[in-house]
């Protein structure tokens, strides 16, 4: 069984006019894959990401994550799964502004009930891995965008999740930093074997991944194998 198994996922938003966003998504993602989900805005890729991240419910179909059926979970169960199985990386970093870098990284472990000392040591370890040791006691607004995103990555990694979901991870970064962040994700995938799913609308970003899943109007278009990273010629990276 694949790590992620989506079978005929349908999702309709009922805000006044019913909006059928996902129209029967079937998708398998294996452990250790580095894939991107590409699509224009309104294609349903964010909705798909929310469902993958157990942030939103779907109407029909089944979603198995690491063999567990993710459907109609209670809020606390969903929170627990999110905490243990999924690491999030957001476009706008979503660090908590009044907490230092190390405190932000510690936060998922705080909700797991890990003792303070152990939590701190672990957070420092991950910050070191991402080259942020000297920034540990700084607040997010004292750091550059790239540094903030690396703190966010550390926070995503600290619970050793099954998958990392990155929602436009380079959307708020300049091109040089974007490349660095993508290199980092690639490295994490290669060296640690972490499954990473990147949602993006940028071909340049998608090209860094090994597999590109195109989504259009709520259905999956073609799935492009991209092991050579030649899906895009690289002429206009941003």
């Amino acid at each position: 069984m694949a790590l992620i198994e989506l079978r005929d996922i349908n999702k309709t938003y009922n805000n006044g006019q019913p909006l059928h966003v996902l129209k029967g998504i079937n998708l398998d993602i294996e452990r250790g894959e580095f894939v991107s989900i590409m699509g224009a805005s309104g294609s349903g890729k964010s909705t798909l990401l929310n469902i993958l991240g157990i942030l939103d419910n779907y109407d029909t179909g089944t979603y198995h994550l690491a063999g567990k059926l993710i459907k109609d979970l209670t809020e606390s169960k969903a929170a627990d799964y999110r905490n243990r199985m999924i690491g999030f990386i957001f476009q706008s970093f979503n660090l908590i502004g009044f907490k230092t870098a190390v405190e932000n990284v510690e936060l998922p472990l705080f909700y797991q009930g890990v003792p303070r000392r152990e939590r701190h040591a672990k957070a420092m370890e991950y910050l070191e891995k991402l080259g942020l040791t000297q920034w540990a006691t700084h607040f997010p607004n004292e750091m550059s965008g790239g540094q903030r995103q690396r703190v966010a990555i550390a926070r995503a990694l600290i619970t050793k999740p099954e998958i990392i979901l990155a929602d436009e991870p380079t959307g708020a970064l300049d091109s040089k930093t974007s490349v660095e962040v993508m290199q980092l994700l690639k490295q994490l995938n290669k060296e640690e074997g972490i499954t990473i799913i990147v949602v993006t609308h940028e071909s340049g970003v998608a090209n860094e991944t090994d597999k590109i899943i195109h989504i259009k109007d709520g259905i999956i278009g073609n799935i492009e194998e991209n092991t050579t990273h030649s899906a895009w010629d690289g002429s206009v990276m941003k």
Partner: protein
Amino acid sequence: MRIDRDTFREILDSLLRNRSRSLLTGFGVFWGVFMLMLLSGGGNGFREILEKNFEGFAHNTCIVFPTETTKPYKGFQKGRYWSLNLTDIDRLRNLVPELETISPLMSLWGKSVTNGDKLITATVKGVRPDYSNIETPKLVYGRYINQMDLQDTKKVCVIGKKVYKTLFPEGGDPCGNMVVMDGVYYQVVGVDYNEGNMNVNGRADEAVTIPQTTMSRTYNFGNEIQLLCFTAKEGIQMADILPKVRGVIARGHYVHPDDEQAMFMINTQVLFGIIDNLFKGINFLVWLIGLGTLLAGAIGVSNIMMVSVKERTTEIGIRRAIGATPNQILWQIIAESIVLTLVAGMMGIVASVLVLGAVELGMTEDGILKATFQVSFGVALLAALLLSVLGSLAGLAPSLRAMAIKPVDAMRDE
């Protein structure tokens, strides 16, 4: 929810992030508790000061004395003067069993009392030992008039505070010394420090109290007495038995039983009842105002927490996304509310205790406290408990709103 250093830090972090707002919100609660404590302490002190005036005076006493008759009766014309006598005591004791103490009192004013070259003008009162049930003496030296004094018509006296201070300025125990009044030597057997402002026939501190028999004989009262004091037995309302008392006395003196003006009766139970009600009213107002202010403060906390939750939608969304359960969010907001309310309230309690302490310091004379203004520890504890309850109630609505925040909403908020 785990209660440890981390949880507490989370709470402090979010409260201190908006220092001035937390401060201003807390002030509402602070002021509420401060006012409540101050008013209730002040009310108590005021009550004690007032009650000091009635100290040592039985609350269910009635005093009766004769005046001119206003109705003709049994051949007697109206406008007749009559007087009570010692037989009335026996009659009342036999016919009105509801009465506890029945004690006569007679007084003469403006008597010169001397001890060597010291002189004071005092009131002389003739009493029986059971008069102490009506006006409780506060004896600092010696004893009160007793049955032996009464039976043997002894020339002994209990002197009031002022009399003692004037006649014995050097202080010390004056018992055994002689004082002279109208050429008669009386041996001092006690000193009465009762300073209550409620006395019969003159202030207790200016009185020289002697046995009733001695008084009757020395000043030729014979069988007559000036007034009668009596108390009702436990659980009996004085007002209920007064007509019976009136009837018994009237019959003995050929006074018309319905002639209310011929017999002057003062019922202290009514008086004390009025004062009691007054303080009940004051107490009610104190709690109404205090609790009202406190409640307004708590509503302020609730409001601000609501705003704070609204502001922190994203933050709460992030917390939810990375694994906080709704319960953890709920408790965090409620705990923030409780901590804010409790800290502000505790400061209010401390401030009011300090102010009341200062008031007490100002009211202390010669190291003796005139009245207790300070709130008791129990009341303070109750206030703290009340604050916790209020705090959690104030945090309830905002925390429910925070709990309803979905991580997706938070992300969409960008």
